[in-house]
């Protein structure tokens, strides 16, 4: 490779060193994400690593076609920069889904161009063919799955599960088998581009078929899983292209997505295969519906003025936010309420369930946007023992994650799911639009608890009303 004319900058060893520096910076950058004070710098360190990796690639002596590169980068920058600058924090889950999708899209397009360039992997070592095909299938699944997730979160596609019914899993299995079979045929020596395109189409349909049946509340798991998929497909591309930076970066993302997927599934007490197989508790919805009639307990409703009094004279208040807060964009109103309470020497903290919202950490981002101090945000393990000495728990748009049935009722579909134990606090105020059960269609026993009062209304205006009433006390 060391042609006499080639400059030192194009020496492959030198380029490999740059790639090694790049992935070391990725790892160092991610280490920074272990705390809020080091996180900004960590992200920038990773970005520097990326810049080095790109520069190393552009120094490659085979590099050419600068016009096409400039064109692609210009289009990507023109789309990506304004999107990243303007997206609202409440829209972050769909933004992440979209960014994840384009990554998967890039992976399968790269595999496709490799296939075409080599005339159908002619004279290509078998292992390279296999990794390219793996990247093509997984990248395509990730691209289409992420787009559907984006559509659901953006409400272009209904958030409710869309299924083929009982045949869904069978159809998914057939699509997977067809995609893999096409891949095997290509690896075994077929050079047919039709077969390759057929494989991509099967993978695309599979991506659609897997995500369409998944409901909104399961989105945190799906987004994490798709994130893992894109990472693994990138790592496979790295092996096919013999590029260490791609391998390391892709694999770390794969590990990250896997950890998050697992955390989310544990926080819902559900197995990953069960979620991918689709439809949160078809049986659960039925059971919830019958349960609704059985519940003879009374629901007490309250007013903003009464809630304000209760909160003002509390020593300790815990706010439990859920997806309802995000939908109503109530985070700033909640922060204002907190400030008013703190002026009255009330100790306020936030208890956040791992699957609250539509992606891991969704609530935390919204509250951080509203300037809630980091140390007031409590994770579930930290928050639960504290409820017993809490005077008032204020539940804003959260439902299933507070349902005591998860601990007490073995017949409940969510039995075993870890919850925020708000029913341990002295009093509970629930802000909710109506008595409609949550996404899972399960009646929430918390609402019938004698110490619970319901404040019906939109989260944002209800919280603003309480804040206004506080001023009159």
């Amino acid at each position, binding site marked *: 490779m060391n042609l006499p004319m080639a400059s030192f900058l194009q020496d492959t060893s030198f380029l490999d060193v740059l790639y090694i520096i790049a992935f070391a910076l*990725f790892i160092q950058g991610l280490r920074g994400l272990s705390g809020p004070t080091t996180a900004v710098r960590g992200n920038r360190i990773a970005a520097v690593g990326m810049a080095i990796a790109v520069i190393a690639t*552009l120094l490659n002596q*085979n590099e050419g076609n600068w016009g096409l590169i400039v064109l692609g980068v210009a289009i990507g920058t023109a789309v990506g920069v304004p*999107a990243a600058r303007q997206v609202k924090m409440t829209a972050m889950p769909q933004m992440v889904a979209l*960014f994840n999708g*384009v990554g998967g*899209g*890039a992976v399968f397009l790269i595999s496709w161009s490799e296939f075409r360039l080599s005339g159908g992997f002619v004279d290509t070592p078998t292992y390279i063919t296999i990794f390219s095909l793996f990247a093509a299938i997984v990248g395509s699944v990730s691209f289409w799955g992420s787009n559907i997730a984006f559509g659901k979160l953006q409400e272009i596609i209904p958030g409710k599960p869309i299924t083929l019914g009982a045949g869904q899993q069978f159809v998914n299995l057939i699509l997977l088998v067809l995609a893999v079979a096409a891949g095997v045929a290509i690896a075994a020596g077929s050079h047919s581009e039709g077969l390759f395109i057929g494989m991509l189409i099967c993978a695309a349909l599979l991506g659609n078929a897997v995500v369409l049946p998944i409901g909104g509340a399961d989105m945190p798991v799906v987004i*994490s899983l798709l*994130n893992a998929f894109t990472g693994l497909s990138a790592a496979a591309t790295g092996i096919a292209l013999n590029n260490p930076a791609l391998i390391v970066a892709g694999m770390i993302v794969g590990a990250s997505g896997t950890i998050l997927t697992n955390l989310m599934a544990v926080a819902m007490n559900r197995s990953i295969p069960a979620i991918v197989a689709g439809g949160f508790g078809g049986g659960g919805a039925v059971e919830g519906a019958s349960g609704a009639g059985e519940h003879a307990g009374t629901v007490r409703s309250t007013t903003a003025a009464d809630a304000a009094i209760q909160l003002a004279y509390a020593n300790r208040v815990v706010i439990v936010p859920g997806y309802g807060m995000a939908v109503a964009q109530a985070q700033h109103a909640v922060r204002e309420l907190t400030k008013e309470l703190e002026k009255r020497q009330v100790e306020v903290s936030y208890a956040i369930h791992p699957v609250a919202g539509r992606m891991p950490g969704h609530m935390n981002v919204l509250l951080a946007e509203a300037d809630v101090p980091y140390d007031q945000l409590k994770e579930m393990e930290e928050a639960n023992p504290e409820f017993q000495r809490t005077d008032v728990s204020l539940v804003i748009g959260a439902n299933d994650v507070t349902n005591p049935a998860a601990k007490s009722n073995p017949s409940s579909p969510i039995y075993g799911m870890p919850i925020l134990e708000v029913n341990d606090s002295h009093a509970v105020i629930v802000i909710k639009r109506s008595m409609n059960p949550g996404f899972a269609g399960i009646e929430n026993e918390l609402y019938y608890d004698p110490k619970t009062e319901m404040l019906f209304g939109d989260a944002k205006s209800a919280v603003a009303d309480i804040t206004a009433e506080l001023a009159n006390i």
Partner: protein
Amino acid sequence: MILASTLTTNLAILVLAGFIGFVVISKVPNTLHTPLMSGTNAIHGIVLLGGLLIVGLSGNGTFNKIILVIAIAFGTINVVGGFLVTDRMLEMFKSKPKAGGDGGEKKS
């Protein structure tokens, strides 16, 4: 022999990277999981390199050029958008000297 050693070297890198990934990511608190996701999103945008490498090879026809430009555009969206949006989010998590009413709109 060279091919085999390239494969095994790369597999070794893959496996080690997986273990490092698990250790490093396990230390990220729940609170920062959204920035973690968007940050790792940006990192897997590194597939951009694949597009850059292949577009330089000779023998690309028109159709290939089109899909590679799309791939490079996708990768760039992923990298640039991912890092920017993560930066925006993480800035909000930094403790501020004086808590104002509206945050998160800091732009350079």
